[in-house]
């Protein structure tokens, strides 16, 4: 039993591996960057897609984020996973803002290209709601959008969001509350 690696051991090994990867990335080692990419690509992509909605836009921003990360790894404090994730999401957030600024306020587009579910009607309805949600988010403050994406898409706890954004838990909770209240005013009541 003692020979079996427990959950704690696994997390520890992952942590050590990530720390080593960050050290390797700092030295310009491609293998270290590969580890970071594998570990955080999904988070970065989800953040970008939650904010932008368009698939191609999200792919572009994800790519820009990792390219920019190569140039700014000296700003990374340490190799702990929450820190690395916060650092990448911070870069991604700025890339999203830049991207949105470049493109201006886009027309509402609903990408139905990946609708592979059994019931296309349900998928289409979900897509429309997601699009409505992103449209409503565009009326919120940038900080509120950031908090809501982290909380409801990336499933981060209040503490994680606070650590990732450099704010207190109370401030995060307040932002979330105000953001949700604004969404309630903006979003139309869901049919049936």
């Amino acid at each position, binding site marked *: 039993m003692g020979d079996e690696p427990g959950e704690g051991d696994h997390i520890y090994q992952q942590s050590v591996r990530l720390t080593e990867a960050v050290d390797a990335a700092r030295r310009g080692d491609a293998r270290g960057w590969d580890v970071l990419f594998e570990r955080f690509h999904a988070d970065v992509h989800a953040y970008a897609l*939650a904010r932008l909605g368009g698939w191609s836009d999200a792919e572009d921003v994800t*790519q820009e984020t*990792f390219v920019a990360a190569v140039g700014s790894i000296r700003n990374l404090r340490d190799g702990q996973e929450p820190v690395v994730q916060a650092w990448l999401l911070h870069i991604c957030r700025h890339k999203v803002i830049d991207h949105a600024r470049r493109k201006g306020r886009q027309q509402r587009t609903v990408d139905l290209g990946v609708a592979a579910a059994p019931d296309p009607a349900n998928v289409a309805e*979900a897509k429309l709601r997601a699009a409505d949600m992103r449209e409503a988010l565009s009326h919120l403050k940038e900080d509120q959008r950031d908090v809501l994406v982290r909380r409801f*898409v990336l499933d981060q706890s209040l503490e994680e969001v606070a650590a990732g954004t450099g704010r207190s838990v109370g401030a995060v909770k307040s932002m979330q509350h105000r953001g949700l209240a604004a969404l309630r005013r903006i979003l139309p009541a*869901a049919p049936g």
Partner: protein
Amino acid sequence: MIADDELLAPYLAAWREDSLYPSLPHSRELARTAMLAAVASGRRGLLGRALWFSAGFRLRGLRVRIAGFVGAVAVAAAVAAMGWNAPAGSFLHGVRVARQSVQLAVPGADLAGLHLEFAEQSLADARDGIDPAASLADARSELDAAREVLPADHSSPLWTRWGDDEAILGTEEAAPAGQGGRPAGDPAGGSAPSAAAPHSPSDDEATVPRTAAGGDGSADPTERPGAAPSPSSSPSWGGNDGGDNTPPSASAPTSSPHDN
């Protein structure tokens, strides 16, 4: 709590689900390739930074050159503005001379009129007491130059003007040294020279080239009492060797308008 929110829950769920679709494999590999390319180029960063620094240095050099050019233009403009009417003897008088040369070089310029204008400016400077000796010398030079290009038609107003200016110049030259300026009460125009002037109206007959036959060299209009004739003071159309001073133009008048 949010799950119980009938309004927001479906939107948040749809938004979350929509955002968690995985990236397309092709796009994912493109992003990885771009990142690794950036890592590879970062290893060549020393050369890249050197090139960047070099480009920055070139940019700074260009800025310096542009600033230098703009500064030189500004200084030149300031010098031109200050020296536009700089009186004779002043540090920037060369600018005024250059400006006058340009005006004279303009095709179709009224040379006689311009020379007279320049002479009158110099006379005005002398009257104002601005280096009278240099200003009067300037005026003399301009009047001599004007006389060479005055029209053959002696009834031209330019001849009248030239005669008046000559008279004023004579008055100023005859003034005692150190009194370069005309007395304050004197009218600025000076169109009525004083009787003491060497070029009094009665002298005007001698200042206008004689066209009548038998004129001798003593009628040379450039001769001034007590003044040595300058090399440029002879009329352009005739000699002062005692010969005929008749201007080349057949329509030359027989008398100066001052005779009237």
